């Protein structure tokens, strides 16, 4: 793929970043003065980026060949002799797809948040952070080199940290924010090592430079780079083994969960892998590792999603699982890249829609998150029910909703990989589809159907309340439909959930669009394939089992003890326990041992020596008793000894 210097409209691509940076800057520096109109500025800046994104997108469609990839050099960041670190933007089909997703879904969620956060005294700060996030995310996907990407990568990590801990007066939120930050650091270390390796091997960070040399660099370097990039992707995209932070990240306000922890930031890992496709194409081992991580995570997340009673955590498990699908696809090479991104975009719509729907339910239910206290909400929240329902149909992959097209493409691609690994991966993906149907149906049934359990049980809620509500303050909520500012974004996202998959997959629209960046899939197949049909049958089974367990029989107000698997899934499949026992405890022991060695060993030696000298001199001091005659005697003895010594030597 060749890249041209940016011309025409693309010369102003920096505006994409400038708008949200300006918004964040004004809101953060302006302080309380901007409280009144801060949220409006935030939305406006995001919309401005969206408009420019659309202009760039349609201009790009008008180009052909090399014109589809345009590079804007912004400035030289660190120019040192042979080392050139530049800040530059790359507008190509892959990055512009992300730009539209980030600014589009971002703008809708910001509009939603205007109403959702209306009663929060810190709404202005919230919008400042969201603008910061959008700017960082755009830098991440637009940068034309890995160093710029890394800056964006850290920027979204910071925004994620700030927003998970937005209600930092809640200890759980503060802890969750720290946990997300630390888990991400592990992944970030992988990405930074990959970048260092690139510089050591290739002497450049630019995508074009790295990819040109990766082909000739030998598979050893490519494999090492691939595995390090995978580690980075695991951290950011909450893939096993760095998955533990995502479920706790639901402590943040719901729009944050929708935008950062469902639609955009957590998919950055998939973007990283797909963007680095020339590296992975040369490294089959790294690709296999990517597919294994994806397959394990998609089952891991799905199983966790089945057991959570917290609606947001159930959706978070689902997010983990769906990103597992994308990672799996990204590991399949050119056969899967385009479907990874297609599923990513479709997922951006339906998962953001589902989260906003959950937010709308929370809004009506006084921030209660326990689904066992929901029930019968479909008549009271009709718009939320319909939009959530469309997202639900999209995620479980009922034709003709978008998940059907994108997820089945991934299953087909895994199937066509062939060999034992292809069979196992396809089987995981198909089983995952069945489990997805089960847990999403469970969420639907527990939330919208059945008796109104909140009438008898009441709710506690108060996610953003300061001080938080306690069990004693349990009350009966008055569920009501959310205002237009919240329902309109949900409706638009529902439209995306319905149509995105069909639009992207049918006629190979998206495959042809992305082909210059990631290559064409080798096999083209129809919509109806055997693996897809098997998956669809499993989906129907999954829905049926969910109905038998949560629709036909009443849902208990308190969770039953459950089977071994249920209890394991409730405990996040012991992900935290694993981290705690394998990483945290040995670390604590090591520090304790070091402290003990330091205080007893090193300090003991030094202090002991000092005490010995001090004690001895304390005793020797007694010789100085103030009697002149004893001094005279010692002088005499000394002189005599000296003389005797001299005589002995002399004789």
């Amino acid at each position: 793929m060749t890249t041209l210097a940016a011309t025409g409209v693309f010369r102003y691509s920096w505006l994409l970043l400038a708008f949200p940076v300006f918004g964040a800057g004004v809101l953060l520096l302006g302080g309380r003065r901007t409280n009144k109109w801060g949220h409006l500025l935030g939305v406006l800046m995001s919309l401005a980026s969206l408009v420019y994104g659309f202009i760039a997108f349609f201009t790009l469609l008008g180009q052909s060949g090399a014109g589809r990839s345009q590079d804007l050099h912004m400035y030289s960041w660190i120019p040192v002799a042979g080392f050139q670190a530049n800040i530059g933007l790359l507008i190509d089909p892959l990055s512009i797809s992300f730009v539209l997703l980030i600014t589009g879904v971002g703008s809708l969620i910001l509009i939603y948040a205007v109403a959702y956060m209306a009663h929060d005294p810190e709404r202005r700060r919230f919008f400042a952070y969201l603008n910061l996030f959008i700017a960082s995310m755009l830098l991440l996907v637009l940068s034309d080199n890995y160093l710029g990407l890394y800056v964006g990568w850290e920027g979204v990590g910071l925004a994620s940290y700030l927003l998970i801990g937005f209600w930092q007066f809640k200890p759980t939120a503060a802890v969750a924010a720290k946990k997300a930050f630390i888990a991400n650091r592990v992944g970030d270390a992988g990405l930074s090592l990959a970048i260092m390796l690139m510089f050591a091997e290739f002497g450049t960070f630019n995508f074009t430079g790295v990819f040109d040399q990766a082909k000739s660099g030998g598979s050893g370097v490519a494999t090492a780079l691939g595995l390090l990039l995978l580690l980075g992707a695991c951290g950011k995209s909450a893939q096993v083994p760095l998955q533990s932070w995502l479920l706790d990240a639901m402590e943040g306000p719901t729009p944050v969960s929708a935008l950062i922890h469902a639609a955009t930031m957590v998919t950055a890992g998939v973007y990283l892998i797909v963007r680095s496709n020339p590296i992975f194409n040369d490294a089959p081992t790294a690709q296999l590792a990517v597919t294994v991580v994806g397959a394990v995570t998609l089952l891991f997340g799905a199983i966790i999603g089945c057991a959570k009673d917290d609606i947001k955590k159930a959706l978070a498990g689902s997010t983990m699982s769906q990103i597992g699908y994308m990672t799996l696809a990204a590991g399949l090479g050119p056969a899967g890249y385009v479907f990874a991104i297609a599923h990513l975009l479709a997922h951006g719509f339906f998962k953001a829609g589902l989260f906003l729907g959950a937010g709308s339910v929370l809004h009506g239910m006084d921030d209660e998150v326990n689904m066992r206290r929901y029930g019968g909400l479909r008549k009271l929240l009709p718009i939320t029910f319909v939009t959530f329902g469309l997202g639900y149909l999209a995620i479980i992959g009922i034709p003709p909703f978008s998940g059907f097209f994108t997820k089945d493409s991934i299953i087909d691609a895994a199937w066509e990989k062939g060999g034992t690994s292809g069979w196992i991966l396809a089987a995981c993906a198909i089983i995952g589809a069945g489990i997805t149907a089960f847990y999403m149906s469970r969420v639907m049934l527990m939330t919208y159907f059945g008796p109104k359990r909140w009438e008898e049980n009441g709710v506690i809620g108060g996610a953003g309340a300061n001080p938080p509500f306690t069990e004693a303050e349990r009350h009966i909520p008055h569920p009501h439909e959310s205002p237009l500012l919240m329902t309109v974004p949900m409706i638009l996202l529902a439209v995306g959930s319905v149509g995105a998959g069909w639009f992207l997959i049918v006629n190979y629209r998206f495959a042809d669009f992305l082909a210059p960046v990631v290559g064409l899939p080798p096999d083209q197949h129809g919509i109806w394939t055997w693996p897809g049909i098997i998956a669809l049958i499993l989906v129907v089974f999954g829905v049926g089992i969910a109905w038998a367990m949560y629709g036909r029989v009443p849902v208990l107000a308190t969770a039953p003890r459950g089977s071994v698997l249920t209890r394991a899934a409730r405990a996040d499949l012991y992900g935290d326990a694993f981290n705690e026992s394998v990483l945290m405890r040995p670390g604590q022991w090591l520090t304790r041992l070091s402290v003990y060695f330091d205080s007893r060993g090193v300090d003991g030696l030094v202090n002991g020596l000092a005490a010995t000298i001090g004690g001895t001199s304390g005793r020797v001091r007694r010789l100085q008793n103030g009697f002149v005659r004893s001094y005279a005697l010692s002088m005499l003895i000394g002189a005599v000894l000296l003389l005797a010594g001299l005589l002995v030597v002399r004789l």
Partner: protein
Amino acid sequence: MSPAHYVFLAVILFVIGAVGVLVRRNAILVFMSVELMLNACNLAFVAFARMHGNLDGQVVAFFVMVVAAAEVVVGLAILMAIYRARKSASVDDANLLKY
């Protein structure tokens, strides 16, 4: 009389002086014992100068006398001050400067 007799006399005088310094408590007597030791040294110097046939030892003896005179001036002055303050000339009473 051979010069060796002078040396023996010097040794006897020195030992008498040293014992005096160690056993007497009265500061004046200690002083006198010190002078005795110094003069024993002077005698030894002069005797050795005579034995070796040069003047170095005699010169040193003069220096010792000068230093001894200066030392007696300062020492007696201190002694006077201490006696006025403490009404005592015993060296064992002036033992405050210690550990």
